[in-house]
């Protein structure tokens, strides 16, 4: 796709003149100095609090530490990926039901959407962990974390998709109708592809929320990254260093989520017009 898409950045800012260029240079220099100062301060604080002591870091040299973290990392990926897929599929179905002209279906989907959207995911997790087993439905801890996280996200995603569908100009639908396309075809071929393109930024934010939601997997004792990190923390009594490393891993996962969503959107023939494309979070 090589459309003459004006990027948001181009649309928002004019090309800089000489004065602006000077100011940008000064600003850049000041920010770099500030960043270095901040980093120095953090390292100093670590040092003062004895956090740089090798005993907090040496176990990172052991393969077993990384293997354990990797197991947790894969657990997190498995939950996040499965929950993300379920949430997107369910969100899409809820949205399609809600905008359907069949009134009862629309009403039911509306209620479900609002319910999932307004309940905190932790509450849903407790429901699957504590309430449902009481009624004899035993599921593995994987599903006890995955299903509630997916349900919580599906409510939000249904609304995200609906906003996207509403943002597709009415003329697109009318043109398709006038060609004799049926309702389902119009949705599948004309409206949804364009709606998806519109919502990619919100979609990414929501998938990042899914990844973050998985961090409460310890509630159901599922061995995700966070849970395994907690085990290591108590083994080595190394809170700060471990959280530091784990935070970096989560940032990496979410960065990858971001790139992956954009890649998917591109593959589906969608042009992503957003700053997210230029400045991934």
């Amino acid at each position: 796709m090589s459309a003459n898409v004006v990027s948001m950045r181009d649309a928002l800012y004019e090309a800089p003149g000489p004065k602006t260029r000077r100011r940008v240079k000064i600003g850049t220099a000041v920010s770099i100095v500030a960043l270095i100062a901040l980093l120095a301060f953090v390292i100093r604080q670590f040092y003062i609090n004895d956090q740089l002591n090798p005993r907090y870091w040496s176990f990172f040299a052991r393969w077993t530490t990384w293997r354990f973290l990797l197991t947790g990392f894969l657990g997190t990926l498995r939950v996040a990926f499965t929950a993300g897929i379920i949430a997107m599929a369910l969100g899409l179905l809820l949205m399609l039901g809600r905008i359907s002209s069949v009134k009862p279906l629309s009403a039911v989907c509306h209620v479900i959407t609002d319910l999932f959207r307004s309940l905190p995911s932790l509450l849903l997790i407790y429901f699957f962990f504590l309430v449902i087993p009481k009624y004899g439905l035993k599921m593995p801890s994987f599903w006890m974390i995955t299903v509630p996280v997916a349900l919580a996200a599906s409510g939000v995603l249904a609304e995200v998709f609906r906003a996207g569908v509403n943002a597709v100009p009415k003329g697109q639908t009318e043109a398709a109708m006038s060609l004799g396309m049926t309702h389902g075809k119009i949705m599948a071929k004309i409206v949804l592809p364009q709606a998806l393109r519109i919502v990619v930024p919100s979609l990414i934010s929501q998938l990042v929320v899914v990844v973050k939601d998985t961090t409460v997997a310890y509630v159901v004792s599922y061995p995700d990254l966070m849970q395994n990190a907690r085990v290591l923390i108590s083994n080595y009594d190394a809170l700060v260093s471990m959280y530091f490393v784990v935070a970096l891993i989560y940032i990496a996962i979410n960065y990858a989520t971001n790139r992956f969503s954009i890649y998917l959107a591109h593959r589906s023939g969608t042009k992503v017009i957003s700053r997210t494309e230029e400045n991934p979070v």
Partner: protein
Amino acid sequence: MAEEYAGPIIQMRHVDKHFGQLHVLKDINLEVAKGEVVVLIGPSGSGKSTLCRTINRLETIDSGEILFQGVKLPEEGKELAALRAEIGMVFQSFNLFAHKTILDNVTMGPVEVLHRPRKEAEAEAMELLARVGVAEQAAKVPAQLSGGQQQRVAIARSLAMHPKAMLFDEPTSALDPEMINEVLDVMVELARQGMTMVVVTHEMNFARRVANRVVFMADGQIVEQNTPDEFFDHPQSERAKDFLDSIKGH
């Protein structure tokens, strides 16, 4: 069957429509014969677009009836979709599918609705694009084309369905003046080839050149209708006179 049907292609009988309190179409009676070109003209808000859109049921009507090739318009579902496939529509704002290439815009109908093989549909689409003069744009997306080019693609997209009649709702109103003629020329050509057309437009030269009849609307009513030369040179009603004065002022 439909091929032998010799009566008027479009018949509107005592059609009424409201938007809430607003009475937008008042007892509309209109017939369009095969191969006829009817120009709808009238002040803004007089109901021209609404009338046009009732013919392929983009707008429903409150009472009266509309027949296409002698058959009452279906109300919903597959039958309605099949009817719409036979009536081309060209919009003021082009409404090309923004996420599709020009070629895909034109093959969309034949492939998805008529289930023609893609290769065949593409070959015909390229012919149509050449006919309206935008063949070299086939691989681009609509946003890369000028308004005039987009509207010509929209016409090609309609033609790809081999429509029995075409509706044009102010097809040149959103265009820069220098692009109006490239679109009108395509429409004149269509009219010459015998296409049945209902055209909402204020382009008097176009109307004089190709219209068989000019229908003047005001306040939801058909006030008068005549041949273009008669209508433009000797309007009967006060409203038509006032209206013509106002557009000649430009």
